[in-house]
C-alpha cells in the first residue's frame, strides 16, 4: 500500500487491555481500502519520536487495530496518544500466516508471553471462518494468570465446539481452574489434534519455540506443518536496512511468519 512514505492514520479509540498495553483503533486516511493478511505488520511512526513495527490485530468497523505494549520510547508514546492525534503508517509488510493453505486441517496455536497479537488475530480469523477448519487447539502460556489478555475471548473459545483451550502459568504457586502450572510447552502433552493433518502456528520468544519442538516431534508433527512468527530489529520493514537478518533471511520481507524448515538451522543459534 505504501512503502517509503507513510500515510496518515487518525487515532479514534484507545482501549486499554491491561496496564501498559492498549489497542489503538485507527482510521486510515487513504483512498484505497486497506487489505492485509493476518501476521503481517505495519510500520507506525510518531512525529519526532520514532518508528516501530507492529502486527496488524484486525480490522473492525472500518478501523485498523494495533495492540501495543509499552516497552520503550516509541511504544510508550504511542499508547499515550490522544484521540484524534495522528500517526504515520507504512505497510502492510511481510508475509502473514498462510491460513487459506490450512483449510481442512486442525489448527494448533502456541503462544507465550503477553498478548501475542499476530496469533490472536489469526485465531479470530479461524473462528470467524469456523467451517473451513477442523479442530482448533489454543495453547497459551503466561507468567501469572492475570497476565492473560482477552480472558473473555479464551473463555468463549473454550465453549465453542471442537476447540481446546489450554492455559499455563509459569510463575504461579497455586493452580487455578483451567490452568496448569508450568511452561506452555508442557501443555502440548494434553493437546489433542491430528498430527498428520494439522498446522501449528507459534509466536513468542525463540527459546519457547525451541522448547516446543521436541514435544511436537513426540506428537509426530512434521516440520513442514509448523509456522513461526519471528521478531528482529526493523528499521525499514522492506528488506533494505539489513537489521532483521537471520542467516540469509530478511525477517521483515521473508517473514515475519516463516515456514519452520526455512529457519530451522538458525533458530536459537545465539548471535543470529
Amino acid at each position, binding site marked *: 500500500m505504501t512503502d517509503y512514505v507513510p500515510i496518515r492514520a487518525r487515532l479514534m479509540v484507545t482501549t486499554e487491555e491491561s496496564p501498559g498495553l492498549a489497542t489503538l483503533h485507527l482510521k486510515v486516511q487513504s483512498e484505497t481500502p486497506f487489505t492485509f493478511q493476518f501476521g503481517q505488520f505495519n510500520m507506525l511512526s510518531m512525529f*519526532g*519520536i*520514532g518508528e516501530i513495527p507492529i502486527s496488524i490485530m484486525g480490522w473492525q468497523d472500518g478501523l485498523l487495530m494495533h495492540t501495543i505494549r509499552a516497552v520503550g*520510547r*516509541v511504544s*510508550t*508514546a504511542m499508547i*499515550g496518544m490522544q484521540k484524534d492525534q495522528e500517526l504515520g503508517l507504512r505497510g502492510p509488510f511481510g508475509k502473514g500466516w498462510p491460513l487459506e493453505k490450512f483449510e481442512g486441517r486442525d489448527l494448533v496455536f502456541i503462544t507465550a508471553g503477553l498478548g501475542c497479537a499476530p496469533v490472536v488475530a489469526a485465531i479470530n480469523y479461524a473462528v470467524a471462518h469456523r467451517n473451513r477448519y477442523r479442530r482448533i487447539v489454543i495453547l497459551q502460556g503466561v507468567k501469572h494468570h492475570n497476565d492473560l489478555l482477552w480472558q473473555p475471548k479464551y473463555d468463549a473459545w473454550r465453549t465453542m465446539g471442537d476447540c481446546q483451550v489450554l492455559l499455563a502459568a509459569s510463575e504461579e504457586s497455586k493452580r487455578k481452574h483451567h490452568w496448569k502450572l508450568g511452561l506452555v510447552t508442557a501443555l502440548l502433552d494434553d493437546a489433542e489434534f491430528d498430527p498428520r493433518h494439522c498446522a501449528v502456528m507459534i509466536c513468542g520468544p525463540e527459546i519457547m519455540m525451541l522448547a516446543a519442538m521436541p514435544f511436537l516431534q513426540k506428537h509426530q508433527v512434521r516440520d513442514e506443518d509448523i509456522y513461526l512468527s519471528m521478531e528482529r530489529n526493523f528499521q525499514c520493514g522492506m528488506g533494505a536496512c539489513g537489521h532483521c537478518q537471520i542467516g540469509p533471511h530478511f525477517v521483515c520481507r521473508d517473514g515475519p511468519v516463516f515456514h519452520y524448515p526455512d529457519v530451522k538451522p538458525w533458530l536459537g543459534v545465539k548471535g543470529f
Partner: protein
Amino acid sequence: MLQRPLKVAIHKLTSCSGCQLAFINQGPKLLKLLEFVEFTHFIEAGLFAPDQEVDVALIEGSVSTHDDLKRLVNARQRAKLLVSIGACATSGGVQALRNMADDKENWKRAVYAHPEFIEELQDCTAVATHVKVDFELWGCPVTQQQVTECLRQLHAGVKPKDNAEKLCMECKRQGNVCVLITQQAPCLGPVVRTGCGALCPSFGKACYGCFGPSEQPNCESLTNRMTGFGLMPNDIVHRFAAIHSQSPPYQQQIARWRLQDLEGSD
C-alpha cells in the same frame, strides 16, 4: 506530551560554562526552543530561582566543593528529572585530573600562595557519584542539537534517545579519510562516543576524546595498536588523561599504561 512548556532549571557547578553556551549561542533556534521550554533558573541568562520546582534540572559542572554538593542535592530535590550535561558533569571533566595527583596539597600550593583559603572536596567528581541521574548528555562541550533534542523529547513525554555509537561511524559517513590509518595518528575515534560530527578527523587530526567513552569501548586493543605507532606508555596515558580521565574505561588504560611506564623506566 506536556500541554504546557517544560520547566527547566540550569545549574552550574565547577565548569567553564561552555555547555551553557549551547543554549544562548544558538541564535534563532533559541527562540524556537522558548516555544516549549520555560527557563526558571539560569544564572548565566539572569534568571535566579534555584528553589523552584521544575520538570527538568540540567546540571553543568562537576562536584568539587562542599557548596557544589549542597546545590546539587537541592537541585535534585526540586526536579522531577535530572540531566547531567557535559564532560564535567558526566565524568568530572578536565579539573578531575587533580584526582590523579599523588600529592593534592602540593598541587594547590603550586597555584595558590595561600591554599588554606580554599575549601574543596578531596576529589572532583561526576554528578552521578552523588545523586540519581536520569539522563546524561556527553561532550565537552555538548552541542546545541543534543540539548534541544533532549528537551524536545522530554517535552513530548518520552525518554531522550541515547546514542553511544562510535565516532568512527560518523567519521565515515562524513567521508573523512581515516587519520589513524594514513598518518598513524593516535585517534581515539574507535572508543569515543559520537556527537561532535567527527570534527577533529574532518580537520585531519586525531580525536582527543571530548565526548567520552562510546558503547563497548575496546581501549585495550586500541592502545595496543598505538604502541605499534611508536607511542610510549606515557604518551598513551596522556591520550586518556584529558577530558574524561575519570570515566572507568579510560581510567583503566591510564592505570595500565602508567604501570607499563613505571616498569619500563626501571
